[in-house]
């Protein structure tokens, strides 16, 4: 798994970790059941605070992307699990709302928007 | 508790010997060695033991104070806040250094005086030897008992200065008292002198035991008071 921290992006470091781990899980690079690097090891290697990594892992656990097992570590959850599904749906919805807002501002009709959505959906491999 | 005191003692010894043990050993061995050497070549040198004891006494008097000098150098006193030794144990450790110096002094005086006697008369008079050792030890204990609390309270230089002022002050006070009596009641001086003479006569009758015990008692009490004052000062100290 690739994890890079940018100090100039302005995005908080824990967000960067979260986003990159989530992306790795979603694109299948991290498989269900796989262990994430240990908190302290990752903190040491990325040269960041242990608490920052803890926060990223905890928030990923709240999203249902990973699971903390006390004393064992943090493991990737199955993509099909309900919590994660809900999270992803919510995320998709948020992005759609934004798309609709922009479309309305630009006077794009619902039909055109649907066509665009369908096209984009086809383009990306599942 | 013991371990704390042992650590404090060991650290003070390290402080005192920071410039190396060599010079200290040379002086400690040098004085008795000079007596023996001079004595064996030229026979009885009556003033030598006194000179040697004076030198040893002066050096040993300054030795425990070196712990203060080095402690006050840079931020070495901060080390006292780092090491796992309670402050009271640090004070005890320092008084143990004085104790160790007393043992060394006793040994040195015994060797110097003893050697002097051997070269003088070919034999050792043990009671006279004991008196010499005891006198040196009591005087040393009294001196250090005053100096150590002064060093805890002031910087090393200030402490020595204070000590000097105390000596001058005491001397001046005694002189003043005598002068006053001599002027107001000359008879009292005569009385005092005759009293001292009679005291000397009495004590010569009692032998050396009572004055010796008195000396030891005086030294012990002074040392105890000195320790109490030192720990009070040091426990309240802020680095």
């Amino acid at each position: 798994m690739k994890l890079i921290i940018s100090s100039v992006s302005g995005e908080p470091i824990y967000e960067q970790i979260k986003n990159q781990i989530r992306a790795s899980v979603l694109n299948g690079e991290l498989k269900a059941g796989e262990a994430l690097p240990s908190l302290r090891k990752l903190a040491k290697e990325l040269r960041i605070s242990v608490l920052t990594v803890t926060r990223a892992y905890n928030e990923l656990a709240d999203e249902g992307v990973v699971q903390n097992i006390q004393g064992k570590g943090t493991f990737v959850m199955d993509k099909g699990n309900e919590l994660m599904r809900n999270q992803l749906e919510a995320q998709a919805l948020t992005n759609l709302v934004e798309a609709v807002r922009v479309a309305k501002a630009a006077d794009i009709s619902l039909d055109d928007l649907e066509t665009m959505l369908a096209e984009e959906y086809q383009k990306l491999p599942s | 508790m013991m371990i704390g005191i042992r650590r404090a003692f060991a650290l003070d010894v390290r402080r005192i010997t920071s410039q190396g043990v060599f010079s200290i050993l040379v002086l400690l061995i040098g004085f008795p060695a000079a007596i023996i050497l001079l004595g064996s070549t030229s026979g009885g040198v009556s003033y030598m033991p006194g000179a040697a004891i004076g030198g040893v006494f002066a050096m040993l008097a300054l030795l425990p104070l070196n712990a203060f000098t080095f402690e006050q150098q840079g931020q070495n006193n901060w080390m006292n806040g780092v090491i796992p030794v309670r402050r009271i144990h640090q004070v005890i450790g320092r008084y143990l250094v004085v104790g160790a110096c007393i043992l060394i002094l006793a040994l040195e005086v015994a060797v110097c005086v003893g050697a002097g006697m051997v070269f003088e008369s070919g034999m050792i008079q043990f009671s006279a030897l004991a008196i010499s050792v005891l006198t040196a030890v009591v005087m040393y204990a009294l001196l250090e008992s005053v100096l150590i609390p002064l060093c805890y309270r002031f910087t090393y230089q200030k402490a020595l200065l204070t000590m000097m002022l105390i000596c001058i002050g005491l001397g001046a006070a005694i002189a003043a008292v005598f002068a006053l009596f001599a002027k107001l009641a000359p008879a009292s001086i005569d009385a005092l002198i005759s009293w001292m003479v009679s005291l000397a006569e009495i004590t010569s009758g009692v032998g050396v035991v009572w004055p010796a015990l008195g000396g030891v008692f005086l030294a012990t009490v002074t040392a105890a008071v000195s320790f109490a004052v030192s720990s009070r000062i040091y426990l309240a100290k802020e680095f």
Partner: protein
Amino acid sequence: MTIDQSPMALSITGATKHYDSGFTLDDITFDLPAGYIMGLIGPNGAGKSTLIKLILNMIHRDSGEIHVLGLDNIADEENVKENLGVVFDSSYFIETWTVNKVERAMAPMYLAWDHAAFDGYLTRFGLDRKKRVKELSRGMQMKLMLAVALSHDAKLLVLDEPTSGLDVLARDELMDILQNYIADGERSVLFSTHITADLERAADFITYITRGTLYFTGPKDEFEESFRLVKGGPEDLAPDVKGVAVGIHRYETGFDALVRAEDLGKIAGLKAEDGLHWMAPLTAESASIDDIIRLTNTGDVAHAMEVA
């Protein structure tokens, strides 16, 4: 988070110290859980060193309690210091001691002295056993103190401005060492610094003291997130901004105001019709540790300017 369950490496409650000079370290309370690094920050004279001296019982506290690894720092002083590694901003060894003598003096002080570990650090730091303390550079003296602090199995490291005499490489190395040190989750570090770059990297917690009082203590991320920097032109400094700002820096072409994140909503200038933020006269951005220190220490100045 799991922090609350961890035992405390350091727990300070209501620590107060008054100096006759008038300076008072007032009612300082914070906890450092075991396994983390805490940065103690604040401008010079804020009371950082006073606090560290209180932990070490080098000065007398007027009130409050200090526990190290659950032990009272005065009642259990020997135990506490056995488990404490200390580094000051300048050497506490006698200058004429050689590095070797430093070990011979320090080794008997600790039950758990580890000669091999000390030797390892000497090699790693490039410290020559024959060199005298006074011949070492300031950075090397710090490393020597660090080597001693790390060689007796201490559970808590207390470092007072350890990086002030170090170059970038040495500071980076120190942070590496500290992160390694806490990697087992049981050892902890409290270090005071005014170089915030050190904190950005390794500190988990921040305790911020200014003018003798505690301004913030908690996770570093929370510290930075609890403030926002509001910026605007010289005419945009409206009463609502002044009302909530904890510190304002004004310059000819504009101003920076430090605002607590929860007060951001009270500033009208940040909002504009249609929720279009880029149209608003003011902008709000995240505040760095330096911004926070800088602007929380101009409070009086800002106030004085209002009066005038």
